[in-house]
């Protein structure tokens, strides 16, 4: 297991180098003079040349990239081009917000989504099942930013139960995390339902019933264990979706995480910030996928870690 973990961590390195190089390359190779944008329209040709030298833009892209990655390895993600702050420092303030929002969203998706799926499967073809299926379809068909706005409108403006935006106590996290995790919640409910229905029909569940077990025991002790495996495999993908979705949710709720930070940086083409976001998200997503794969092997003893390609 340790050997496997180490190998996976080593495999992450070329992937992260690849994605950072790709993004670095398309950002710098794109049209538009960066130094001109930083300095504004009145800058003279000498000013621009000076600034380009300062930012290292006069060197070949590969050299710039190697320098950037070397500094990044030492925890230095450079300074913002437009506002003079240290990117790493700003990130250390913002990452906790994004991560707690993301984990809370995954939490809702599992704590609410799985039981809802179980109920729908147990009450198969009853009213409850239809209602759950309908709402989960609706939830995964609506744009996340729009749902977020609707929650704000209803729970904050109309009912006044929860704050509409900003950060503070736990209350401020409820609406953003629910709208961030809404789609995953719906898909967790659907996956649980589908697989549980599949497992319920299998022979060993019939045997468990035939032994005279209570229905609840049959579901929880026998059927559920096997039907949750696909849900666990989904968590890795879900986390990636949630890291992407945080860009939108954080914008809707004016949440000071890395998502809203990225969007502002993208609009101004503040490359150090965009790069740092990509690196951080790629590392977080890679690590979560590794943890999920390890977890999968723990939950399902049939899975052999070495043979499975990550």
């Amino acid at each position, binding site marked *: 297991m340790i050997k496997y973990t180490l190998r996976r961590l080593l495999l992450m390195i070329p992937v992260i180098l690849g994605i950072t190089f790709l993004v670095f390359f398309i950002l710098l190779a794109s049209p538009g003079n960066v130094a001109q944008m930083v300095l504004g329209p009145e800058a003279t040709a000498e000013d621009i040349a000076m600034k380009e030298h300062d930012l290292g833009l006069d060197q070949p892209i590969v050299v710039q990239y190697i320098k950037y990655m070397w500094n990044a390895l030492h925890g230095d993600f450079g300074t913002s081009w437009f506002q003079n702050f240290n990117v790493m420092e700003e990130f250390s303030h913002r990452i906790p917000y994004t991560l707690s929002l993301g984990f809370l969203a995954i939490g809702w998706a599992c704590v609410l989504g799985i039981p809802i799926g179980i109920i729908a499967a147990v009450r198969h073809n009853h009213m409850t099942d239809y209602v759950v299926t309908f709402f989960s379809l609706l939830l995964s068909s609506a*744009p996340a*930013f729009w749902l977020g706005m609707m929650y704000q409108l209803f729970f904050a403006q109309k009912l006044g139960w929860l704050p509409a935006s900003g950060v503070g106590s736990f209350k401020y996290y409820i609406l953003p995390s629910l709208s961030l995790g809404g789609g995953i919640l719906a898909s967790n409910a659907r996956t649980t339902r589908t697989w549980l229905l599949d497992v319920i029909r299998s022979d060993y569940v019939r045997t468990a019933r035939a032994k005279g077990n209570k229905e609840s025991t049959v579901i929880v002790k026998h059927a559920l264990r096997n039907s949750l495996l696909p849900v666990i495999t989904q968590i890795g993908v879900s986390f990636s979706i949630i890291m992407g979705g945080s860009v939108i949710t954080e914008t809707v709720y004016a949440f000071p995480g890395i998502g809203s930070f990225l969007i502002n940086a993208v609009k101004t083409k503040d490359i150090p910030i965009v790069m740092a976001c990509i690196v951080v998200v790629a590392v977080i997503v890679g690590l979560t996928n590794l943890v999920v794969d390890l977890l999968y092997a723990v939950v399902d003893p049939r899975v052999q870690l070495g043979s499975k390609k990550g």
Partner: protein
Amino acid sequence: MDMKKEKTTSSPQKKKSQAQLILIRFTKNKLAVIGLIVLVALMLTSLTAPLWLDYSKVTHQSVRESFQTPNAEHWFGTDQFGRDLFARVIYGGRISLFAGLVTIGIAFLLGIILGGAAGFFGGAVDTVIMRFTDILMSVPGILLSISIVAALGQGLFKMLIALSVSLIPRQARTVRSAVITMRGQEFVEAARTYGCSNFGILFRYIIPNVLGPLIVGVMMGLGGVILQIASLGYLGIGIAPPTPEWGTIISENQANIMYHMYLGIIPGLFIMIAVLSLNFVGDGLRDALDPKMKN
């Protein structure tokens, strides 16, 4: 689909053709049929809009008419500039729906080429292509699209490229695994023995046989693409402002939604209905193409 027709001609003794059977199975699924009708209606209204709805209504501003709730003249009401929301939503559909189709089309073609090559040739080609998809999939798709838009700048065509790049890896992987399962089949061996080229085998024998599930995947993916286009529009990095698009319409009205709810609810409902219909059609198509999958 062509493959299905070929099958019919080779076995005329069957009463109903494969295509007919698929059609019958599809029409039995009520939700899928309703979804298809809604989808076709949405596409037709926005496609034919220039014939019955003057484009000037989309951009015509009149402060006197601002913030009218839905009424007989302005069916969906007007925004803060007095622009007609109905006209904006209908014309917005032209971009939201058809840009989605083009995006997924590009991803579909490139996915078939990359995934087909990886699965068919294996070895070094496979390794290179798969590591490339690993790299693209290491960050969430929307982040990749956002970074590409950041580099290229705003605009319809640029957005299409940005979105399709983030879709290619998954598409390529699906095609690859489908091709790998087909590669060892007897009919492929047979084609090889009478001298069919690699290219011919891949595109004439293997791809047509895996087309069914791929099309279902595309239908399912299209809903996601429409949501992504709307999201980029909402973030203000999709289509440039004067052109209406469902996401941009919501974002430009965001400040006024508190007191004029219809401005946010109506365009959002359009996105939701379009995506929901697509999902229904996708589900129906999957069950119709492969009855074994149904549970």
